[in-house]
């Protein structure tokens, strides 16, 4: 597995950006259904403007999860590699209809730059 701290550090330096702060940040996405099984919520949206978020645990998310942002969109498929996905802007995580659990945790490495 790639060392995320080194990876982000190098990525930002190559683009001429200096990291001022970085941390691991888990984001919990809940799936809430009513008594009839109708799904009320299975997505989560939050702001990461002027920031860079790296998805660290793609392999732990259900196949079919879609993560949308201003700079990058990814759909996790069975053949998705263990690559670093970088997101910025308004990030939305949508769990697939096939996911029947209650919670799902996406782990991000959040990077703020000068």
């Amino acid at each position: 597995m790639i060392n995320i701290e080194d990876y982000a550090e190098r990525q930002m330096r190559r683009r001429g950006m200096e990291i001022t702060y970085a941390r691991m940040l888990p984001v919990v996405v809940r799936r809430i259904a009513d008594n009839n099984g109708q799904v009320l919520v299975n997505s989560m949206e939050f702001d990461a403007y002027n920031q860079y978020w790296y998805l660290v645990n793609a392999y732990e998310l259900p196949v079919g999860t879609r993560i949308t942002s201003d700079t990058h969109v990814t759909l996790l498929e069975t053949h998705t590699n263990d690559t670093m996905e970088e997101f910025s802007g308004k990030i939305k995580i949508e769990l697939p209809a096939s996911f029947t659990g209650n919670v799902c945790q996406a782990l991000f490495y959040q990077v703020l730059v000068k």
Partner: protein
Amino acid sequence: MRGFRYQQVSLRISHKGQRVYFNAESHKDYTLLKGIALSIGYESALFGSTFGFRVNEKKILDESHEAHLLVFGNDVPPNQRMMFFEAPVPLQASKLEGIYTDSALQALLGNTSYSPGGGVIPPAEVNIKKTFVSGKDIVSYSPVIADAILISDNTGVFTGGGGLSSGGAAGSPDPSNPVQVYYPYDVRITMYLSK
């Protein structure tokens, strides 16, 4: 060089009359907002729908501004496909907010509060819900999980996986009924930022 940026936000309208609020933040390197445009999959959804917009809590477009005035088709040259502000709005990682109301003006057709022959509708009745941040049926796209529950009646978002359609209606509006609006539909707001 690198003088501009098209920042987009996407809204999903799930049912007739829905109000959808969004907020976003402008990129810190861009200091001017020069224009705004909407785009939409099916134009029939636009008529009577309104779009309000403000920057740093100052009003740029009234909530009753008609959305179709901000949509520019492919017959317009790309450089003119936007409503440009004559005086660009200054930005500094600013809060950008908008509120889209589906079929807002249709609701006024039954307005009886003015003279029998018709007349000016008082602004207070046009903007029934004056504020951006209150109102029961507002779907908030701010990062609060509780608000997201209100998106719930949107089954399309779960089955369609983020497309314009949640079924066979995709791309094939019924020509015999041209005013029909297919829900859910997506509205994309493009903001033209500049240095």
